[in-house]
């Protein structure tokens, strides 16, 4: 009888250990998944520190020349806007009798940068890298100007100048806005045709209406969403997967460009000091 009990207890221990081993294995799997998630989160944080997310978003469309053209035009517009504001501020300061040599030197650098941005070949393979570099330079020059003017003027006078600049209207900026809007419309038209290609039906009159401004982009998006949502589950899933695949490809392309720049050591310093 003693033997039976010993055997029974031994087997009970054996079963308990096996159950624990299985439970531990499952837990380890979960831990691994969690760790992997945390690692990825950590990586994203590091990415955020080196390259701002907005720039990564911006370069997502630069895998074709039209996308690159749009981003470079938008950068030109941003530089022109700051140049005009800077020139206005310098004029005001001159009127008040301040020395503006440093500020004018920064504006001169900004003008040179604008010319360089204008000269970029949008079909070039390096357009993404050039865009990131020039955007970074523009940000640095803006920061330099802002900090220099802060040293010259007190808070109240700065507020005064800020108010005057805010009311600024420029024909040059208006022209940029029109040009960019037209390019974006062309880009969105191409995207719309791509989506129609995935869905398997084309609505030419709707595209025309969008290009003529009779239908807004929000309405275009809504119409496409409705068309997809009305489909049966399988078809909806198929189309959704195709669209998602395209968007993921763009993200991978953007990330690859960023990684490439980092490897070359040129991506560093974006949004930071020179």
């Amino acid at each position, binding site marked *: 009888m003693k033997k039976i009990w010993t055997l029974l207890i031994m087997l009970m221990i054996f079963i308990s250990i096996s159950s624990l081993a299985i439970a531990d294995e499952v837990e380890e799997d979960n831990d691994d998944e969690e760790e992997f998630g945390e690692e990825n989160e950590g990586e994203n944080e590091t990415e955020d520190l080196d390259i701002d997310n907005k720039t990564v978003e911006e370069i997502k469309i630069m895998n074709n020349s039209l996308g690159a053209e749009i981003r470079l035009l938008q950068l030109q*517009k*941003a530089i022109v806007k*700051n140049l005009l504001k800077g020139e206005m501020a310098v004029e005001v300061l001159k009127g008040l009798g301040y020395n503006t040599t440093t500020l004018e030197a920064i504006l001169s650098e900004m003008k040179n940068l604008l010319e360089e941005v204008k000269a970029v070949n949008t079909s070039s393979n390096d357009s993404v890298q050039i865009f990131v570099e020039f955007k970074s330079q523009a940000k640095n020059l803006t920061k330099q100007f802002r900090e220099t003017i802060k040293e010259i003027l007190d808070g109240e006078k700065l507020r005064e100048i800020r108010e005057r600049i805010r009311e600024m209207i420029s024909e040059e900026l208006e022209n940029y806005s029109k040009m960019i809007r037209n390019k974006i419309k062309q880009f969105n038209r191409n995207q719309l045709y791509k989506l129609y290609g995935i869905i398997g039906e084309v609505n030419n009159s709707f595209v025309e209406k969008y290009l003529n401004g009779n239908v807004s982009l929000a309405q275009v998006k809504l119409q496409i969403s409705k068309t997809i949502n009305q489909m049966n589950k399988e078809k909806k899933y198929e189309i*959704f997967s195709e669209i998602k695949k395209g968007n993921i490809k763009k993200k991978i392309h953007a990330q690859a460009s960023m990684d490439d720049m980092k490897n070359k050591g040129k991506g560093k310093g974006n949004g930071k000091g020179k």
Partner: protein
Amino acid sequence: MNKKIISIFFLLIILLSITLIYNFYDKVGTDEKQYDSSIETIDENNVSEEIDDTFIEEDEEIEIGEMV
């Protein structure tokens, strides 16, 4: 005496097998459930998000900071 030991031994072996099989199928079932739910969760918002990602807003601007 020996017969009793063997019976208990087999009983416990069966118990152990049931525990292992249950654990295995339970895990497979959970994995399948997770996979199925990923397909089921495509709703109108998911579609809208992907469509939003496809287009560019017409008034979108690049920010390089303020001069003053």
